[in-house]
């Protein structure tokens, strides 16, 4: 991992949080992001220094709303949550034991969580049912990231369920698919972290259910409702992505020896490295920009700018890029369509489709 540390240079590493890890799974093909995350580089500071700050992070209003909703769900000894778990998972009435892991100091919470879960997994009876804010650890490329699920519920047939409390509304049984997908990815990170913890403790990791309980406000009221979300697919993506991160050596090997993304922070912590030099260094790695990046990655504006300069098809979204397989830029696609450019080997099929589309378009407009 020394090579990765060299990429980061003298800048202190930035710990990952669940959102950052979930975002890894959102764009697994991006080598630039994999390298930056693997080296623990502060992408936000990098983007700001490059002159492409992302208006990123949650709005304070969303955070306040989220916290208020979580407090509502957990009020009165998790009364609302217990009702939902009883309805959804047929939790027995006797199962109400509640452990507030936040009652211990911050430095002890991880150890306390381990001890509590070890006891729960060891002895089927007499252990807790609801664990409020446990602290899990997940090793990402040599650094431990600490993660804090909202709630972990246990004792539903001896299995652990991750409970994720989100404040976006479920209206008439429907929720914003992007929000649900993001919540599922985040919950998958928790499932993975908890499974690894159980494995380390010598228990069966599959005792962590792949169905997570998503709690959202229902319709236009603030009344919470719970649904089960299957995160197996997200888990698979995440696991593959994390195993790739440990296999970063391959990506690193292709890079020039002297390459570094160091910001060279001065004594006041502000970067002193010329922005153009840093931008050149970053361009040595391949990014895989997609419009979705705008909601998950700090470097999104930098990569978008790069994609624009290249006129890359990536700008048009993943679906278009996949349809245009083998055609790198918009200019190339247009050339193939109006016949000014001869298709290269392997491009015959897409060129025929593009020419047909162009003919149809002309006929429509004529």
């Amino acid at each position, binding site marked *: 991992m020394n090579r990765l540390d060299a990429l980061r240079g003298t800048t202190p590493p930035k710990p990952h949080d669940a959102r950052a890890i979930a975002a890894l799974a959102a764009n697994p093909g991006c080598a630039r992001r994999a390298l930056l995350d693997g080296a623990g580089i502060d992408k936000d500071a990098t983007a700001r220094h490059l002159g492409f700050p992302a208006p990123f992070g949650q709005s304070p209003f969303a955070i306040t709303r989220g916290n208020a909703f979580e407090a509502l769900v957990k*009020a*009165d*000894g*998790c*009364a609302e949550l217990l009702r939902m778990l009883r309805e959804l998972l047929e939790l027995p009435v006797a199962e109400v034991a509640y452990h507030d892991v936040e*009652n211990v100091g911050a430095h002890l919470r991880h*150890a306390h969580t381990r*001890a509590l879960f070890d006891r729960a997994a060891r002895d089927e009876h007499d252990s807790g049912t609801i664990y409020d804010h446990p602290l899990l650890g997940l090793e990402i490329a040599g650094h431990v990231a600490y993660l804090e699920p909202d709630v972990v519920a246990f004792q539903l047939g001896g299995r652990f369920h991750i409970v994720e409390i989100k404040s976006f509304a479920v209206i008439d049984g429907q929720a914003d698919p992007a929000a649900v997908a993001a919540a599922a990815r985040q919950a998958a990170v928790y499932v993975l972290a908890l499974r690894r913890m159980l494995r380390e403790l010598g228990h069966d990791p599959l005792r962590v259910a792949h169905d997570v309980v998503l709690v959202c406000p229902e319709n236009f009221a603030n009344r919470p409702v719970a649904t089960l979300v299957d995160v197996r697919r997200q888990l698979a993506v995440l696991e593959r992505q994390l195993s790739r991160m440990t296999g970063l050596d391959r990506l690193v090997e292709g890079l020039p020896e002297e390459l570094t993304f160091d910001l060279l922070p001065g004594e006041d912590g502000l970067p002193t490295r010329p922005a153009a030099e840093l931008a050149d260094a970053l361009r040595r790695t391949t990014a895989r920009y997609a419009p979705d990046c705008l909601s998950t990655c700090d470097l999104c504006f930098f990569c978008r700018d790069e994609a624009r300069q290249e006129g890359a098809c990536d700008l048009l979204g993943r679906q278009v890029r996949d349809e245009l397989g083998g055609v790198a830029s918009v200019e190339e696609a247009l050339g193939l369509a109006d016949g000014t450019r001869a298709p290269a080997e392997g491009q015959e099929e897409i060129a025929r489709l593009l020419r047909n589309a162009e003919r149809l378009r002309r006929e429509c407009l004529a």
Partner: protein
Amino acid sequence: MRRGGGGDGLRLVTVREQAHQALTLLGVPAQPRLIAAVREAFFGGGLRGAQLTSLRRDEERSFASSPYGRPYYLCAALTDRLSPARGLLAVSTWPLEQRMVGPLSPRVHFLTCAVAVAERMTAGHGVDAGPDSGAARLLARMARNIPGGADLDIGPPDPARVIEAARAELAVHAERDTRDRAELAGRAAAQLGDRARLFGAATLSTIGDRAATGPPAI
């Protein structure tokens, strides 16, 4: 301290007394949010949960400067690690067991509160028990989360039915909860000084450490 009576809003009652009244009605440690709701339902509004956040610290300071100088203190409920439980207020004159929070206690507290609120409504006490009153709304919110406490959101809940449903669930948890809390109270009495007994001990050990030195809590 004056108790009962409708909220005429003109009497000067300190935040501390208001919280004490609500806690005495409930009889168990409670969160500021619930204390404010009970205040509003039975004694007239004016108390906000946020006003209670610094109360415990002020009380502790007062106790430290002149121990037992007041007839009662609003103090902490204690966890199984004898540390103060997050966000719960209790009354110092309660027996120690009543201020302990075992694993089942949050649920037991909730059910006990529901019974207390419903009893208060049936007893009258000049409470406006109409379907739109604060008391009815508070009870409806609680009844929804008790099995058999309410029909599907139709009409205001029947206090007698809520009491019955809550007692039925309480019966399931009561024995183990009482045992846990008695054991905790014994430990607190043996290990803590006056101030820590009211306001909780600092947390320094994990449960692993404790298992090595004493009997497990649960």
